């Protein structure tokens, strides 16, 4: 008996030691307000002195810190990069281009050569000063990364002109080019050639990396020599909480100061309680239903229009997004250059009778079976898909919902009949050509539209461009290659005593530099 007890004791001791040796992730951060025991009241008035730290919620784990590597366009990774790296310019919420690392720029007469003048005296986190060679190096690295391709595709070459100017030559005229520059971060060439950027960084941004545990927490601290002046908030902690409801619990108990309310249904009660600051920002994102235009009977325009009439956006928004979204009729909205206000209305108001009529016209008076609908599983897409399924059932159209992890891959490979999808857009309709020119997800191919898009891309006169886009949009509304559903709004909640500004762009939703405590 004693032998057994001794052995058990040994096992327990070993196990305890083992657990103790496992990587701790800052278990000493119970200092400061909002400790992890959840004793905060959520109003942030625990400390009497003004706080200098902030805890921000992140909805998923990080995979890399490398702004030019795999995964650099994933939102969660971008939240970190946004605080530590900067680009040549920045596009604000009013669609204006704001100079950042570039102070001004000129375009040649033929529209192919852009010269950017760099800001003087900007320091990197390693103490080096920003030079044109750093910019050239950053662009070269970026142009080797496939996920950034949309942004550097128009570029033919990038050269330094002295130490303070960079010359970028395009392959062909591309009007929105400068705004695309907000997506290429600038890194110190000296640092990047000697160190790996996967787990370390060296940007010009207001915050430096202190530590990162990819699956749980990232800590940053203010960069003293930031060119705009040191940040108001000294320490930033980003915490990963993958469960939406758990995140809300953490926020209410004071564990988190600033949060994107991933669990949309929790927003209403949080807002009504009056204890927090809240905001609803629009996004450049459209949830939509894809129709495979080359698969019968979806190749018949009447069928697609019928399905559009059977789309009850109001119910979908109520159920899938708790009413916190705006109905969308195009893949972009009136915030985008090229979409005029008088064009942007629902051409297909929810009307089941009209839908049935069109179906009969198309040759399906008794309804039809559209097979499987590929749905992005575990998301709000699943919800509006169920609503759509119900509406379709009422006009005799049958679909079966299949959740898929590879929805994006399937859609890109046209391996679907109908599917749910979410796509971003920008402040310029040129970006939307990817939805309507060949090899788009909806498998839509209309030579007129393709031609109009290329004409618009090489046109520098904005009035003429606007007109091209107007023509395209008229055709799109008539042809219904897909069914846009809604533009979701992001619900933000944050501590009552914290000043913060959420932004429109899903990839750059917040900058800690702009935050401060009362």
């Amino acid at each position, binding site marked *: 008996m004693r032998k057994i007890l001794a052995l058990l004791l040994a096992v327990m001791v070993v196990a305890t030691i083992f657990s103790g040796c496992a990587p701790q992730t800052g278990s000493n951060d119970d200092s400061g307000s909002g400790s992890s025991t959840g004793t905060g009241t959520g109003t942030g008035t625990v400390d009497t002195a003004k706080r200098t730290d902030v805890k921000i919620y992140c909805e998923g784990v990080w995979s890399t810190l490398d702004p030019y590597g795999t995964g650099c366009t994933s939102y969660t990774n971008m939240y970190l990069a946004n605080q530590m790296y900067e680009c040549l310019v920045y596009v604000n919420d009013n669609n204006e281009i704001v100079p950042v690392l570039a102070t001004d720029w000129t375009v040649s007469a033929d529209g192919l050569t852009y010269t950017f003048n760099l800001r003087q005296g900007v320091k990197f986190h390693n103490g080096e000063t920003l030079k044109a060679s750093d910019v050239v190096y950053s662009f070269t690295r970026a142009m080797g990364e496939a996920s950034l391709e949309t942004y550097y595709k128009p570029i033919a070459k990038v050269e330094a002109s002295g130490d303070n100017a960079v010359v970028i030559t395009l392959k062909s005229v591309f009007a929105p080019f400068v705004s695309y520059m907000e997506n290429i971060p600038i890194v110190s060439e000296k640092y990047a050639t000697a160190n790996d950027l996967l787990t370390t960084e060296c940007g010009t941004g207001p915050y430096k990396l202190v530590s990162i545990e990819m699956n749980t927490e990232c800590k940053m601290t203010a960069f003293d020599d930031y060119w705009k002046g040191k940040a108001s908030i000294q320490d930033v902690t980003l915490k990963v909480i993958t469960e939406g*409801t758990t995140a809300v619990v953490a926020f209410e108990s004071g564990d988190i100061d600033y949060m994107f309310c991933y669990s*949309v249904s*929790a927003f209403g009660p949080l807002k009504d309680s009056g204890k927090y600051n809240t905001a609803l920002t629009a996004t450049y994102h459209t949830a939509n239903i894809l129709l495979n235009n080359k698969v019968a009977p979806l190749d018949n325009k009447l069928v697609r229009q019928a399905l559009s009439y059977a789309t009850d956006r109001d*119910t979908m928004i109520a*159920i899938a997004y708790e009413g916190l979204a705006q109905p969308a009729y195009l893949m972009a909205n009136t915030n985008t250059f090229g979409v005029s206000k008088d064009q942007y209305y629902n051409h297909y108001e929810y009307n089941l009778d009209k839908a049935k009529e069109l179906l009969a016209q198309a040759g399906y008076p008794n309804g039809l079976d559209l097979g499987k609908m590929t749905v992005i*599983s575990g998301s709000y897409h699943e919800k509006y898909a169920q609503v759509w399924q119900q509406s379709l*059932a009422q006009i005799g159209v049958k679909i079966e919902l299949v*959740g898929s992890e590879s929805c994006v891959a399937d859609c890109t490979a046209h391996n679907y009949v109908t599917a749910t999808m979410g796509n971003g857009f920008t402040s310029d309709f040129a970006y939307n050509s990817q939805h309507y020119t060949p090899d788009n997800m909806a498998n839509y191919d209309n030579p007129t539209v393709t031609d109009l898009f290329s004409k618009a891309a090489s046109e520098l006169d904005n009035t003429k461009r606007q007109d091209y886009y107007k023509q395209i949009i008229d055709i799109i509304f008539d042809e219904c290659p897909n069914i846009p559903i809604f533009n979701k709004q992001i619900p933000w909640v944050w501590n009552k005593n914290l000043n913060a500004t959420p932004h429109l762009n899903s990839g750059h939703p917040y900058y800690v530099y702009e935050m401060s405590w009362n």
Partner: protein
Amino acid sequence: MNVMEEKAVRVRSKKKSKSAEIWKRIKRNVGAMIGLVIIIVFALSAIFANQIRPEELVTKQDVTVRLQGPSAAHLFGTDAYGRDLLTRVLYGSRISLTIGIFTAGFSLMFGGLLGAAAAYYGGQADNIIMRIMDMFTAIPGTLLALAIVAALGANMTNLLIAITISSIPGFVRLIRSTVLTVVESDYVEAARACGTRDGRIILKHILPNAIGPIIVQTTESISGMILQASGLSYIGMGVQPPRPEWGAMISESREFMRQYPYLMIFPGACIILAALSFNLVGDGLRDALDPRLRD
């Protein structure tokens, strides 16, 4: 009646009284009877669901009544789509019971064949089969089932297949050890020594004695499979919406649990009751079939 006929009658009534005896013992076990009643209730509601509530109510959405608590019109309340929760929970019993019983049945069948083969042929065959089973056991069951569902596509049929595959090694081990124990026992040796044929030995001696523990384990594994199915559906790798699987319903209710806890409580209670009832019955069977309790 002559002596022979008397003996025959006595033998027959002895046999009959054996199963009657077992049934009597089960009846005495309150827990097992409660479990049996619950199973019957679930089974009846699964079979006669159409009579109780029309099937279209399962998917009938009504935004105007969404997220309402239990009321006269909706005894269990409504969910986020305005669907009647009672109907969905009711039809959910179909899915859960089907999964539980079919997976247990198939696992038993395939696992039983493999286990019996391993025990019977022994030697190399036994070795190979058990090594292969070791490989499957080394992968955590939930993860194996998950991977299979991800590979084949998430729907109820594939969920059945996945859970069956991940449960087979357990049954192989069970059948094999049960058969081995019985095969090596004294009365089988005695029968062999008497010159009884193999087939007769299997039928008259091995099977009746092996079947007890097998039945008990199978019944109790049903509850494990119901839990596993609901767990997989909870993370979205199981039955697809809008089908009313209890685990999937709990998953949907996750974000509403603070203001509308009833959405989580009703399906949760059903899973617990279903799993519990099979446990109770299995436990009662074990006690009833336990030869040692005869003294």
